[in-house]
């Protein structure tokens, strides 16, 4: 079978909708178009039934009760609602009282949709600790433990990192939070639907996820909000009709929710097989690339990682030119250097990847329909491109001549 180019290896950014998801959604645009809030006619009831079914599928995926699922527009909203909603609800002192409002623990390599709400809360008088993981990228329970204080009200640590795919110690961090009486939120955007979740066993209080990362539609997601042991309360950010038990007002996105539900149902059924297949493909890709190139590293912990994401750094090659060279492979770049053209990756910088000079990195993320042929082709193209750019790179020559690049006095530019 001929390869179709460009090929898509950016599934951590978004995924195509599964055709089964689209099929499930279609009737809800035209036939079952009612507002689930319309309690007094067939149209409303039919729509509500679709939403309820979906809520059940999402709850099953997470090991939760359907009543604990709040539909959102995606993880950004879920993270905002969880973090700000919990902070405002559990604050130790109100704004303007001149007293500390409470302490929050998060991590420096979270997604911006977690970091920025935390930074806003910091401006509003909350204190925030940004944990910095080591080179393996893992946030451990010990790191969280060391940061916890008597006034810690919320801990928000992502389940798996979106850039490097590393997996944090969620169950242990959850247990710790429950011991200490802090609310535990996890941004599970990259994890949920790919790997098993059991909110009871994993001791999660709040969990955000998105539809479009799990072969569902964009613009819809879910926030799990624990109802028992402990019952977690949130201050709503959007007020109005009181939908979603008052957590999130606004007419429900019925088509999107139905799509999310279907995607969750499929994810649960196919998770194990998908994960196993993708892990084999990812390893194949990594060994093909690192086996043929020196001065190359896979970033983050070697084992504690998602099956489908890899982030590889290449020495002596600049990021934008590498992206240009592999332009038929759709992936993300995380340049660790302060290039004029590429935003440096704060994740890789935190891990210390940028400390060594002249690195560039590619994040490749595989998906449900990624084939072995695609992975082999991508590996070949990447190896060729890096070799070509190294043949142009004065830094690679200097490295091969035994010159220590960190000791060279570079000009100011």
């Amino acid at each position, binding site marked *: 079978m001929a390869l179709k180019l460009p090929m898509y290896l950016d599934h951590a950014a978004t995924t195509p909708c599964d055709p089964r998801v689209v099929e499930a959604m279609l009737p809800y645009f035209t036939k079952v178009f009612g507002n689930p809030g319309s309690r007094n006619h067939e149209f409303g009831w039919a729509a509500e039934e679709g939403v309820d079914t979906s809520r059940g599928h999402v709850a099953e995926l997470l090991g939760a009760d359907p009543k604990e699922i709040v539909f959102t527009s995606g993880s950004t909203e879920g993270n905002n609602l969880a973090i700000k909603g919990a902070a405002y609800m559990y604050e130790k002192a109100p704004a303007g009282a001149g007293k500390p409002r409470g302490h929050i623990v998060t991590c420096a390599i979270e997604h911006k949709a977690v970091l920025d709400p935390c930074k806003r809360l910091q401006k509003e008088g909350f204190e925030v600790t940004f944990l910095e993981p080591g080179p393996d990228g893992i946030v451990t329970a010990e790191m969280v433990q060391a940061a916890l204080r008597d006034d810690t009200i919320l801990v928000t640590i992502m389940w798996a990192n979106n850039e490097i795919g590393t997996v944090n110690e969620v169950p242990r961090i959850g247990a710790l939070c429950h011991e200490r009486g802090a609310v535990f939120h996890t941004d599970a955007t990259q994890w949920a639907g790919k790997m098993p979740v059991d909110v009871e066993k994993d001791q999660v209080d709040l969990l955000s996820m998105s539809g479009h990362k799990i072969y569902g539609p964009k613009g819809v997601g879910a926030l799990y909000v624990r109802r028992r042991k402990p019952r977690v309360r949130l201050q709503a950010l959007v007020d109005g009709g009181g939908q979603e038990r008052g957590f999130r007002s606004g007419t429900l996105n019925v088509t999107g929710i139905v799509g999310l539900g279907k995607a969750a149902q499929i994810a649960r059924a196919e998770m194990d097989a998908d994960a196993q297949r993708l892990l084999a493909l990812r390893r194949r890709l990594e060994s093909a690339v690192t086996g043929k190139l020196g001065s190359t590293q896979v970033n983050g912990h070697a084992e504690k990682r998602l099956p489908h994401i890899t982030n590889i750094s290449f020495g*002596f*090659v*600049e*990021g*934008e*030119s590498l992206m*240009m060279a592999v332009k038929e492979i759709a992936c993300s770049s995380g*340049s660790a*250097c*302060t*290039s*004029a*053209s*590429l935003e440096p990756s704060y994740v890789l910088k935190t891990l210390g990847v940028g400390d060594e*000079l*002249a690195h560039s990195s590619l994040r490749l993320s595989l998906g449900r329909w990624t084939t072995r042929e695609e992975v082999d082709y991508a590996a070949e193209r990447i190896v060729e491109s890096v070799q070509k750019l190294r*043949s*142009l*790179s*004065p*830094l*690679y*020559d*200097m490295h091969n*001549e035994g*010159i220590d*690049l960190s000791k060279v006095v*570079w*000009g*100011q*530019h």
Partner: protein
Amino acid sequence: MAYGPKIIEHYEHPRNVGNFGTQAQVKARKDVGVGLVGAPECGDVMQLQIKVDPSTGRIEDARFKTFGCGSAIASSSLATEWLKGRTVDQAMDIKNTDIVQELQLPPVKIHCSVLAEDAIHAAISDYRAKNGLPTRQPADAKTEQAP
């Protein structure tokens, strides 16, 4: 980054890639001038080498190696083409704006052309210093008349 065809052409088929020896070898060669400019942490390092015929002062050959974006590679590739055949004095007249114009560099990439000009000047200064020749500043007034 949407690049024009000339940048893509130079990026895909860079001219005169290479050098006239290792760092240690070219340092010892009086007929070779080396310009190494930029910094890895800025995302651009250009190395330009010129080989000069001492009897005529003419640049016989030029080579480059660049760590950087597509525009940086194209700018230095173009610079080597323009350097060949010029005298060292004439080479000083190559302006970054000429490179911008020729390659149709987008505004955010003008620094690549500046770096290429810096590399040319550095290579010439190195050649002059090795041969005990006086340094000459680029004749700004003259090049403005003849772009």
